[in-house]
């Protein structure tokens, strides 16, 4: 079994109002010097295969088809 992590983040230049609100809240808690906060998503997947190359290809397809909206988001794949 392969354990993988997919991280989805907003592309540069896409407004992230949630990140902005978190940035403001961190400032209100007294954390100074925060340049920017961008919020993203993490997906942990377990795949029933021993073939990492196939898993990687499948994960890429999953990102393109569902996990990320590539109009506004980037994704990256890593293995545990």
């Amino acid at each position, binding site marked *: 079994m392969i354990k993988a992590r997919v991280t989805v983040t907003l592309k540069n230049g896409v*407004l992230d109002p*949630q990140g902005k609100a978190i940035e403001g809240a961190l400032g209100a808690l007294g954390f100074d010097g925060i340049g920017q906060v961008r919020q993203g998503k993490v997906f942990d997947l377990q795949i029933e295969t021993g073939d990492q190359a196939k898993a990687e290809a499948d994960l890429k397809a999953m990102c393109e088809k569902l996990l990320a909206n590539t*109009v506004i988001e980037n994704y990256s794949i890593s293995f545990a």
Partner: protein
Amino acid sequence: MHSISAPSALNRASAASETASNCMSFKRRRQGLNRTMKSAVVQLPGLNRDRDMIAALTKISGKAPVTVWQTETELPDVDLIVIPGGFSYGDYLRCGAIAARMPVMQAIKAKAEQGVKVLGVCNGFQILVEAGLLPGALMRNASLKFVCREVKLEVVNADTDFTRAYAKGQIIRSPVAHHDGNYFADAETLKSIEGNGQVVFRYAEGTNPNGSMGDIAGVMNTSGNVLGMMPHPENLIEAAHGGSDGRGIFASALEVIAA
């Protein structure tokens, strides 16, 4: 099957039906058509504006729409397919993302390619962009708040199958109710949709409720047969709603007005 419950609503529906059939006979004579325009409403778990949409289509066209469940892969022969608003799949992952991958969407894509009119309202708009039938994306409102109020819309393009009942530049009233209606497209896409006349509705000056780029409230595809919009025209179609500004969209799409 859905029925209209209040007797007064029935009366109104039959009055609308008479008006519609008068217009339709004119239309039939003009176009040589031998039938009433037919519509379908798509139903998915979590959508909750389907009944409003069914009522609006019934009252305006005089004919109840066919309802289509998400697992259906073959669609009835209709002139207009409507994806109503709501919170399909609880807005999980991204609004409309899961609904956009359901079997019925493949069938809708095929119909859209054949030129059948498709209208997505609110969550329906989010589903259409997630399915790739319309450009751009709909993000969390810039205010981070759910907005439920009335806005004013400018009819930017009145030369479409959905807006010919209006005049270019006309300002109409429309309710909005959404958390993720902040329209985004990259600079290149934005330039092309603006240039092609694909921006059909804009929030009138000072009423943008969600931070949408270019105040965009509704966009269509390049062929002009698929329209998505965040506002809810189906909730402003008769005196009991406090106005009927939204009626023109359905009247245009169902050709119950003289083109």
